[in-house]
């Protein structure tokens, strides 16, 4: 199979169209199974009670938030190096989903923190760097939105994305160090409690569901972006006419 065949927007568009429903269905099934495990199968935690079930949403969201930023940087690097239009489209299509997961991670974290720590927010290293990650997502999206010329918007966003990905470890390290020096909160997320097997399964299934959701949404968004950019080409016109 020749992968380069699908590097062109005109061939990628129908492929993505075929894949989106599959990923969407998978995401739906996995979410249902994952939520069932999370709410009915997984045992109640003897320390945290029922409130711990938030982690079934929180942990996959946090994983995805970081992973998507790295994937975006990967597509940005490929796009800048080989000047492939599709890579920029993928990087751009992923950004809103990544920002959404970052926000969900922060939000569910706050809901978890209130009963467990007694505070909606503490300046823990992980929380702080997740917040800064949200700022980085917002920065990339704001820059792309501010530039009308798609070519320039793609490249500028990709550059900022790469600078961000170099900075993320430095930020994480500096925030961790800042946090330990201040000794503000005695709570730490780093001491992960050993979990029951079913809890782990619930989390993994939810993580897979988040993956499938991301793929479905990103591909659907990429399709719209491709149509918008290629609207003057013949194949895109043909697609649009069929739709109309």
């Amino acid at each position, binding site marked *: 199979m020749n992968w380069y065949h699908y590097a062109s927007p005109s061939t990628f568009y129908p492929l993505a169209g075929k894949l989106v429903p599959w990923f969407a269905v998978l995401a739906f099934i996995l979410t249902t199974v994952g939520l069932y495990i999370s709410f009915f199968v997984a045992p109640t935690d003897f320390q945290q009670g029922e409130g711990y079930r938030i982690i079934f949403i929180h942990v996959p969201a946090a994983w995805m938030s970081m992973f998507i930023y790295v994937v975006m940087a990967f597509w940005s690097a490929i796009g*800048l190096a080989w000047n492939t239009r599709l890579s920029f489209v993928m990087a751009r299509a992923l950004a809103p989903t990544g920002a959404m997961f970052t926000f969900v991670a922060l939000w569910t974290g706050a809901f978890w923190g209130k009963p467990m720590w007694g505070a909606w927010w503490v300046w823990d290293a992980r929380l702080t760097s997740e917040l*800064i990650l949200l*700022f*980085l997502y*917002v*920065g990339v999206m*704001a*820059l792309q939105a*501010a*530039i009308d010329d798609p070519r*320039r918007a793609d*490249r*500028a966003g990709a*550059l*900022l994305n*790469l*600078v*961000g990905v*170099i*900075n993320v470890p*430095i*930020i994480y*390290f*500096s*925030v961790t*160090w*800042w946090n330990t*020096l201040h000794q503000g909160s005695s709570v730490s997320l780093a001491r992960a409690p050993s979990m029951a097997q079913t809890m782990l399964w619930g989390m993994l299934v939810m993580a897979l569901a988040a993956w499938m959701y991301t793929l479905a949404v990103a591909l659907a968004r990429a399709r719209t972006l491709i149509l918008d950019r290629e609207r003057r080409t013949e194949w895109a016109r043909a697609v649009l006419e069929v739709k109309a």
Partner: protein
Amino acid sequence: MLKFLFTVIRRDVLLAGRRRGDWLTAQFFFVMVVSLFPLGVGPEPGMLRIIGPGVVWVAALLASLLSLERMFADDYRDGTLEHMLLSPYPNTLLTLGKAIAHWIINGIPLLLIAPLLGIQFNLPTEALRMLVLSLAIGTPILSLLGSIGAALTLGLRGGGALVTLLILPLYVPALIFGAGAVEGVLSGTGSEAHLSLLGAFLMVSLLLAPWVSAMALKVSVE
């Protein structure tokens, strides 16, 4: 090569010297932001001493952002920038020179004013010395990283507000290590580690930032 670099720096510094109004705005902004904090949180000397280093550092970040937009914008508007990019010298030298000039114009005055503001916040002498030292290492980072933001947002609507969104998250390590160094003196835990890390961050930015902002300039101008 060096001559080109010096020419870029000299030109920007001269231009800033001829237009003192623009240049003084950022400095007074710095002073005012710092002076507003005691009005907001109260004049208690103990508390001011605790928040002082952080406040001066945050104000330094904001003041450096305020003047970023002009780093390339004037030259872009009258077409000088395109000619500079067409010159046979590497574009990284141009962006490096612009960042150094920005530091000379905006960073060095901050170093001179900072001790006065530190006195207002009741900081002891050793802490004042450390404040100036940390700013001396840290403000070049702000100019270097800022040059990336200025190049990316060149000629955009609302570029000034946009550049703050892009660049402030990247400033976080400089803020933590810079303010941390001064606090290390205050709390007696030492500040060598903070200064070393700040210096390391400066070296990384010095290596990468001119290169990235040269690429960003090309993207923005073409």
